[in-house]
């Protein structure tokens, strides 16, 4: 059986010279299959929106409806969670959503899924949390401590609550990164394992005799692959959506600090 982990191997496509970042060291900037997947996803997004907004008709065509639908969906999401101040974060959330969605969906069509790389999901998560922290400090200044000290809680409870709040805040980027990573990894491993069963059980059944029952198992596995693929499309959308929603929720915490709405 083919190794289900092989699909996650990074492979160089084009060797490029390494760059040296001060304080970090040399970084190999070679184009890998991961880079290609990210580039393709970004290109797909740009192409999609270039096509859908090209005509800019008042009465939209089919593609324009899809493009506007995604736009409105995220727009409503951002304004719904953060409020009207969320408008300035909309491009970021929108980029996050479409980029992750494109990488997830491309992973179902191509051999490599960029979002199944922890490096990618962790970078997106850390970037999001950094924006939350930096914007929070810029907006609230010293009041940022309120994030960890809920209003109206007696002091003796704060001794308990504050460390929990701090811990949960520190875990946010971790869960954000691992949720997307784990879902993509798990889905693709399961697909590969079931697909491997089809081949190995089919080969076993081909030996004849009692082993012919293997055809039945192989067919079941094939059905499993089909069902899982359908499920993975849902997961691809859902995880992009969840990432965008959580980014909104975390931003909302610092935008509307102290007053819940």
């Amino acid at each position, binding site marked *: 059986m083919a190794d289900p982990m092989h699909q996650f191997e*990074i492979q160089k496509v084009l060797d490029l010279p390494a760059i040296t970042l001060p304080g970090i060291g040399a970084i190999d900037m070679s184009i890998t299959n991961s*880079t290609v997947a990210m580039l393709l996803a970004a290109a797909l997004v*740009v192409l999609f*929106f270039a096509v859908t907004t090209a005509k800019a008709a008042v009465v939209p065509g089919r593609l324009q409806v899809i493009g*506007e639908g995604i736009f409105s969906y995220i727009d409503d999401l951002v304004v719904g969670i953060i409020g009207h101040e969320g408008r300035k974060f909309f*491009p970021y959330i929108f*980029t996050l959503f479409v*980029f992750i969605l494109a990488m997830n969906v491309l992973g179902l069509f191509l051999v490599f899924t960029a979002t199944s790389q922890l*490096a990618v999901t962790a970078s997106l998560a850390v970037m999001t949390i950094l924006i939350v922290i930096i914007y929070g400090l810029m907006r609230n200044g010293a009041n940022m401590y309120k994030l960890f000290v809920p209003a109206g809680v007696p002091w003796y409870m704060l001794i308990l609550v504050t460390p929990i709040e701090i811990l949960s805040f520190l875990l946010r980027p971790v869960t954000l990164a691992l949720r997307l990573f784990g879902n993509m*990894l798990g889905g693709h491993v399961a697909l590969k394992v079931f697909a491997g069963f089809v081949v190995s059980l089919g080969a076993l059944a081909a030996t004849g005799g009692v082993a012919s029952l293997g055809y039945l198992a192989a067919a079941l596995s094939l059905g499993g692959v089909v069902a899982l693929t359908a499920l993975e499309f849902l997961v691809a959308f859902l995880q992009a959506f969840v990432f965008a929603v959580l980014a909104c929720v975390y931003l909302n915490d610092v935008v509307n600090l102290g007053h819940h709405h």
Partner: protein
Amino acid sequence: MAAETPNHAETAGADHGAHASTGTTEVAAHGGGESGGLPQFRMEYWGGQIVWLFLIFAVLYILLAKVFVPRLRKIKDNRAATIADAVNQARSVQAEAEAQAKAAQAEIDEARSRARGLAVEAKAKAAAQLATSQKAEDERLQAQMDEAEARIRGLRDQAMSNVRGIAGETAQAMVEKLTGQKVTAAEIDAALTARAQGAA
């Protein structure tokens, strides 16, 4: 792709072989985080992926934020404006139609009242005409009747005077026959007058 990077494929294959043979070393390898276990934990590829990701994300963000989001927002605003315009126009047209309908109704009402007035007038005129013509006819008939009555009266009077003459002559003849004396017409006439006066 494998052909381009034979060394990687080989190392990967070697890793897999190691995993298959010893499950415990795999766990140990996971803990180490370097080579082995999930390919995602090979740190030598993290730097490049992260830098590329930020580059691509930045470009995508700029393109979306500066080009596509404003474009999409403009389309939506345009549509909202168009719809609002159309609704306003429809509302004004409706109001106009309502006003026109009201004007037409008023016109109809006016025409109806005018027609009613005309009818009343015509009826009055007809009645007046009828009354005058009837009166003229009545007068004419009355005159005819009066004339006829006068004629009848004349005829009767004539007849009555004739009766007096005849009665006088008859009385003269009867007196002559009975008494054999002649009486004059004047005597008879006087007698008759006296009788008539006495009777009256």
